[in-house]
């Protein structure tokens, strides 16, 4: 295949995907939000500006189209400072999905750098933790459903499922804002994942680091409705920007009003 034909194929594929999964950016209102990580470390709510969020996580097909447009992000060409050795290793070839990576499944085993580069290609960026957490608090009828045990059950149910099985396709039921799959499909990168807790090699047991140890971890648990979210924070804060895992994907966000 000539480079031009390849690019064309990639473009066609991207168009096809956009139609199939109707991935789009939907507006979220922002505002004040009671995050599990208070803005001042105590009780202050987070302030989130209005933003637009991708309605689904990025799929294998979409990421394949990106890699074909930007071959520097092929797994055989990406520098090791941008992605670890398992980057896209579920794909059959550097530019073929194969049997273990279906087009409609969310793409996983992508590093933070790769996710950020993809979002730039959509004239977007990774969402911040506060943006992501605020979006994920919604259910089908409420913007903040976290006090409902059913919301928590849904999150926890995913945690208690082992990850040996193939990932489902994107396209779960939409929430109030029209966003899908925030909980229950894959972990998702956020822009500031490494600012949630201080580094794990720190012996300083003050501050955010306390979440990782027995006693203080147990104290945090008193807020029953929060521990499901704390587990996500624990997961994100265990990562480095080059890391990839079998359950970690991403979606993108952009300021409201920005269009490509």
């Amino acid at each position, binding site marked *: 295949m000539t480079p031009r034909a390849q690019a064309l194929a990639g473009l066609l594929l991207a168009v096809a995907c956009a139609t199939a999964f109707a991935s789009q950016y939907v507006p979220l209102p922002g505002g004040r939000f009671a995050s599990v990580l208070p803005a001042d470390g105590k009780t202050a709510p987070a302030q989130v500006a209005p933003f637009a969020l991708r309605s689904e996580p990025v799929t294998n097909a979409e990421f394949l189209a990106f890699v074909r447009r930007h071959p520097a992000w092929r797994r055989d060409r990406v520098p090791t400072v941008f992605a670890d050795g*398992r980057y896209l290793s579920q794909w059959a070839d550097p530019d073929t999905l194969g049997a273990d990576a279906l087009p409609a499944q969310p793409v996983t085993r992508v590093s933070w750098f790769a996710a950020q580069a993809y979002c730039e290609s959509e004239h977007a960026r990774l969402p911040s933790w506060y943006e992501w957490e605020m979006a994920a608090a919604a259910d089908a009828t409420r913007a903040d459903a976290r006090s409902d045990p059913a919301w928590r059950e849904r999150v926890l149910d995913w*945690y*208690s499922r082992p990850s040996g099985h193939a990932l489902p396709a994107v396209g779960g039921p939409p929430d109030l804002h029209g966003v899908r799959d925030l909980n229950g499909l894959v972990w998702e990168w956020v822009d500031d994942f490494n600012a949630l807790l201080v580094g*794990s*090699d720190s012996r300083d047991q003050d501050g955010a680091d306390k979440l990782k*140890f*027995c006693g203080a971890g147990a104290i945090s648990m008193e807020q029953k409705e929060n521990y499901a979210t*704390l587990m996500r924070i624990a*997961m994100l804060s265990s990562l480095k920007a080059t890391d990839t895992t079998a359950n970690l994907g991403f979606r993108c966000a952009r300021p409201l009003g920005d269009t490509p």
Partner: protein
Amino acid sequence: MSTLLRTLLATASVLVVAACSGKPDATTPTTGAAPPQVAATQSGIPGDFGPPQGEPIHAVLTSPPNVPPPIHRNTPARVIVDLEVIEKEMPISEGVSYTYWTFGGTVPGSFIRVRQGDTVEFHLKNSPDSKMPHNIDLHGVTGPGGGAASSFTAPGHESQFTFKALNQGIFVYHCATAPVGMHIANGMYGLILVEPPEGMPKVDHEYYVMQGDFYTVGKYREKGHQGFDMDKAIDEKPTYVLFNGHEGALTGDKALTAKVGETVRLFVGNGGPNLVSSFHVIGEIFDTVRQEGGTVEQHNVQTTLIPSGGAAMVEFKTQVPGSYVLVDHSIFRAFNKGALGILKVDGPENKAIYSGKEVDSVYLGDRAEPNLHAVATAAKANAAGTLSKEDQIAAGKQLFTGTCSVCHQASGAGLPSVFPPLAKSDYVARLAGKDKDALIAIPLHGLNGKVTVNGVEYDSVMPPMTQLTDDEVANILTYVLNSWDNPGGRVTKDEVARVRAKPAAAAAAGH
């Protein structure tokens, strides 16, 4: 007390045990053992015997109930421990699956054995398939977080840290990633033994037993996949209390074994996350207990308390054959939540010590049967739509042994004037013929007040057996109807579900 004196005393008491295999006697002379290595070094830190010597050694890790072989080394070494975190689905009881998080693929995790003064190079690997990050806090580590601060590991990664094992004893290790209680409740705990420099007294068998409490959304033995229930965990109301992570892990063909006259050492840990264990072996007296895994020895102990996040070493010599039952003597946990194990001792009877009667069948309960195979068979057949009456009877018989025979007796004869008979019972026959729903309601809702069975009046209380699922009730009733000259017939799961959905009738059903 000086460190030197304390060390010498501790060593002396260990040697006492080595010198006598029966009930220890404090006056036994401590002859014939190697001189103890005194815990004083150039660094001045007790337990530091200097830098590791020789080539690094890879630690032998074992799955429960096995323990790695004793260490025969006279010098400290660098010991490399490779432990992998694996999240996997396994049965927690027959027909019930649970998603465990494990150190090494088992619950409890792999047993680690090192020598005091060893430099331990710890590699914690988190499987690429894991969903969660994990770390490890070893209670045998002197340092921040017991290693947790240095071992926070994302899926598909490996952390390394090194510590010197300064204190001898048996120590719990566990995951300390938030929410800590959930990681522990999912099975993330195990034991590390730090042997004293002179080694442990030789015994014939060493076994690894660890208790844990589990919190599932469904009830005890409710079939299918069961998720973790955080509310029950916070309320400290476990669904299961288990030895070695699975109901039946130490019973039937998986029972621990020994011969008459042999010495047995149990390393008994308690992972928690919540409960404290009253560890007891029915029919044995512990000759020696190192409570809380420390160096002080207690002798002639019946039941020893094992804190959550603690461990003990218990030793005894077997004298007469039989099945000895390991329990948490907070006894509802043993018979209603699964905290049972069996030590089978084979060998010649010694009627001078014990008349020869076997261990009480009440204590053994259904777990004496080889792991409830018939129940699992029936559950499978039910799912496949091929459940036969014979399957139900076989399953019902095993369930009856565990749940009903305590009062109604395995023979169905009951106990005169206390528990009514089920064998050739006119009461059962009448309900089976005229009011099957009332028959089904008895195990579901219990039965209080006066009833007349085969001409004899009974006035006692049968509690509702709410732990039984619909198919279990159906199987038990089908077994009863087809045993002991009762009229026969069959009860289906759907019939039970229908009766369960109705409100409980007033007491004394059948009048």
